[in-house]
């Protein structure tokens, strides 16, 4: 073999190693890696528990917590939303005066699937499956709208329109997004999921059965 041939062979070997290494990397660039490389963690808390104690702790956050995503979201919704994000909170995050007109970063279909699969592995032990029946019942509506005034801060569908408050996340299609069991846990364990928020604590005000009915109603909105 001449020196030139050896040289060319080496170039080939190095290039092959590079390409193989690169695709190996790609196949391992799973949801967790995408989440890190896109800097999603700069706005979203990914490891629990909740640590906020003061208004300031909450007000300096740039986005909602994702450390219990697997307990909170329906995975089909999550995949779809990450690819085509649409407004959930009508007001800018943490604001009560400014409209939310920010465009959330979007992912490709494949990335969205990988990131959703990763996020769905993050769960909270406080959420147990099976206690809540997801259904938009008249009892649930009565509690949500009349009895406990949830509608003062959250919008739901009212005929062809929407009605209700704007300071809390829009719940008009909450059933596509949220698991009923999580909504119940959120009402029942306010300190675990969101210790500092503009929504009042209802533990000791709404009894357990009613809480389940309301949670089912919220998760019945589609």
């Amino acid at each position, binding site marked *: 073999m001449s020196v030139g041939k050896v040289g060319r062979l080496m170039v080939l070997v190095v290039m092959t190693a590079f390409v193989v290494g690169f695709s190996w990397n790609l196949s391992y660039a799973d949801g967790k890696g995408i989440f890190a490389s896109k800097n999603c963690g700069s706005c979203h808390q990914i490891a629990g528990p909740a640590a906020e*104690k*003061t*208004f300031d702790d909450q007000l300096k956050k740039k986005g909602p917590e994702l450390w219990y995503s697997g307990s909170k979201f329906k995975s089909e919704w999550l995949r779809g939303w990450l690819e085509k994000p649409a407004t959930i909170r*009508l*007001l800018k995050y943490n604001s*009560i*005066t*400014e*409209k939310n007109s920010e465009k959330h970063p979007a992912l490709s279909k494949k990335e969205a699937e990988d990131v959703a699969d990763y996020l769905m592995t993050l769960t909270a032990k406080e959420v147990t499956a099976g206690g809540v029946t997801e259904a938009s019942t008249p009892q649930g509506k009565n509690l949500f709208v*009349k*009895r*406990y*005034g949830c*509608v*003062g*801060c959250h*919008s739901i569908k009212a005929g062809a*329109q*929407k*009605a*209700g*408050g*704007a*300071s809390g996340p829009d719940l008009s299609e909450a059933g596509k997004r949220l698991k009923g069991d999580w909504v119940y846990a959120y009402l029942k364990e306010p300190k675990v999921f969101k210790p500092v928020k*503009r929504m*009042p*604590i*209802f*533990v*000791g*005000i709404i009894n357990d059965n009613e809480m389940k009915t309301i949670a089912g109603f919220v998760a019945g909105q589609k």
Partner: protein
Amino acid sequence: MIKRIFLVITILIGTAAFVGKGAVFAATAEENYKFYCAQCHGLDGKGEGVNAKPKAFGIDLPEMSVTPRNHTSSVDMSKLSDIDVQNAISDGGASVSKSSIMPPFGKTLTEAEIKDLTAYLRKLCKCKGK
């Protein structure tokens, strides 16, 4: 040298943990008002927060069916005793035969915070309770 750095770090962490623990979260009445009440009653207390008048903030939702109390109105606010006000804040509108859209904050705020808020409302209306 290494030992010394270690000692300094230990002391720093120790102090940080101690300070962190010592700081109890106590919000002033004004801070509580702006965080909780303003979403309906407005930052200025006139009853025109975003939930009451979403369109004024560019949001396409109808106005609230019951107008939140204008806390700067001495006419309206002087009709309520301090106890009425405290009950409304603690147990919600329904507890004082008003709209349940006024939510209960008794499990969210301490009794002392509710008293402070009542005093803050008296400053807003520049009025006394009946």
